[in-house]
């Protein structure tokens, strides 16, 4: 499929560059807007080059407190979102790897029932069970807490199934060799299963971190106080219906700041991520 004729390569590159421009331009434009004053943004046309108010805008948004969200700084929102995304990603991985471990390697009564129970939850989207879940959180007094934000999103059928599929490819002889070598269930998990799952864990972490970072509906329900908002909620609150009432330059700054962590996670873990999706190290 790879052709070495120059015209073909040129066309391929042109198409790729156009694609990148289509994806990257809005982000660039957001960045440009985030370095202008509110007046400059409201007076079209917007310049295509960054303005001179980078430090001003960014420090104002990060540490100054933004009026429309009750004077809370974007730094606080970033922190909240980070806690939530990390909590969901790490929690999900821990729970699903352990439940997959139990389902694949242990014979206990009701094993298949549990497996199917987990599997069935795949068919229920979050929105369907959001009201009962909300009621439970209210009863437990978890509104406006990190626990309330993280806990309900942690149980995951998808990740459990993914680990299950991976564990099933581990040859039975390896398990037996470990038994002969005197490795109990916990040792086997820690010394053999975990290292072999590294790439899968990394790939899942990236996916789940972004999933957690971009949550909207659940944090909207769970948080009332501005200090507990996540960045996506904060962003929404900053935008008023009246155009002139919105501090667009700060909104743009928040947008850029909201994009950065997921990009960082993807870039830093890209190597692992790709390996986890493509090959299984065996």
């Amino acid at each position, binding site marked *: 499929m790879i052709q070495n004729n120059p015209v073909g390569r040129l066309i391929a590159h042109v198409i790729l560059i156009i694609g990148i421009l289509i994806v990257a331009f809005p982000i660039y434009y957001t960045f440009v807007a985030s370095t202008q004053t509110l007046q400059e943004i409201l007076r079209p046309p917007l310049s295509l080059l960054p303005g001179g108010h980078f430090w001003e805008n960014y420090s104002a948004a990060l540490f100054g407190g933004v009026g429309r969200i009750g004077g809370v700084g974007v730094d606080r929102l970033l922190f909240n979102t980070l806690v939530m995304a990390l909590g969901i990603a790490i929690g999900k991985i821990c729970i699903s790897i352990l439940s997959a471990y139990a389902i694949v390697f242990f014979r206990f009564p009701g094993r298949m029932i549990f497996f199917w129970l987990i599997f069935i939850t795949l068919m229920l989207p979050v929105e369907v069970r959001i009201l009962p879940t909300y009621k439970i959180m209210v009863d437990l007094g978890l509104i406006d807490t990190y626990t309330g934000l993280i806990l309900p999103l942690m149980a995951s059928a998808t990740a459990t199934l993914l680990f299950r599929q991976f564990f099933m490819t581990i*040859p039975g*002889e*390896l398990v*037996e*060799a*470990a*038994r*002969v*070598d*005197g*490795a109990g269930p916990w*040792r086997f998990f820690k*010394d*053999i299963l975990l*290292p*072999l799952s*590294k790439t899968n864990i990394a790939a899942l972490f990236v996916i789940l971190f972004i999933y957690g970072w971009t949550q909207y509906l659940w944090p909207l329900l769970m948080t009332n106080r501005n200090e507990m908002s996540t960045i996506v909620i904060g962003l929404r609150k900053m935008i008023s219906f009246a155009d002139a009432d919105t501090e667009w330059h700060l909104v743009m700054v928040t947008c850029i700041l909201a994009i950065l962590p997921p990009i960082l996670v993807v870039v830093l873990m890209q190597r692992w991520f790709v390996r986890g999706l493509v090959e299984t*190290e*065996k």
Partner: protein
Amino acid sequence: MANVELTNVRKVYGSSVEAVKGINIAIEDGALCVLVGPSGCGKSTLLRMIAGLESITDGTVKIDNKVVNELGPAERDIAMVFQNYALYPHMKVYDNMAYGLRNRGMPKDQIDKRVKDAAQILELTQLLERRPKELSGGQRQRVAMGRAIVRSPKVFLFDEPLSNLDAKLRGQMRVEIKNLQRQLGVTSVYVTHDQLEAMTLADILVVMNAGSVEQIGAPLDIYEKPASTFVASFIGAPPMNLVPVKADHSGLVLKDGTRIGAEGLSIPLTGALIGFRPEDLEVSAGTDTHIGGLALDLKVLGVEPVGAESYVYGIIGGERVVVRVPGRSTSNTDDQLRVIIPKQKLHLFGADGKRI
């Protein structure tokens, strides 16, 4: 080092599938016992029961005169070499070998010494820092052996360890395993379906079929005196020729009605099989009846020269047989040959397949 004793060992899967039907084997200290049989005969199940990887339905397994039925694999003081080697893919060769020792809480310097010694014996010293992925099949096999050796267990268990290697390497590793086992003097149980491997390795050979033991003995004894037609056709390549015969008052009758002289042979009237190894036939030039042997007519179907010897395929009394001839054979297809089976090389089996 220890002896291994199996008494009436049975394995039943579910409620009715009997995979192993009451087996008794006693293996002396330091001996290498080979379990051989076709696939599905229960030999691997039996090995896994000795290892503790499979529960024992009935009977007892003793290692070093101690009943180990209820002990887990790690507590039985055994080491096992698996067919696919089962090396830990993420660990270096060194760690693969050290893992079992670490789990037993052995001090670091002692582990180091043992691993290095084993690596020396197996010529793995250069490879200790590699991962299994970077090793060839033969090297992986050696690491699997090393993992067993470092533990210096009471018993080695081998589950078809050579079947993933190519033929040349298999021959080489076979010799190495034998030497190593001799050198270390560790009691071993070795499972294979390859009769050649079984013959060359075994001190005691156990031929199994359909969950039962067909015959136990020294390899050459079994070769020379197979207890049943199953053993006769399983051990030896090409297998023993078996020709059904009927007896009447005047002699023997083959399936196609050919009558042959059978002085001094006592054949039961219910019918029987005569067996003879391919190499035990003498091709006779004339048509004379040989004294002290059975003279038979063979029609040649084809000749297979393999270099040092030739296999002549033919028909005797309606049954296909093989004759092994040293060097090149001068026979051609459709030739009629007169072959003689010396009486002392003749095997007789009853209608039930048991040796008479």
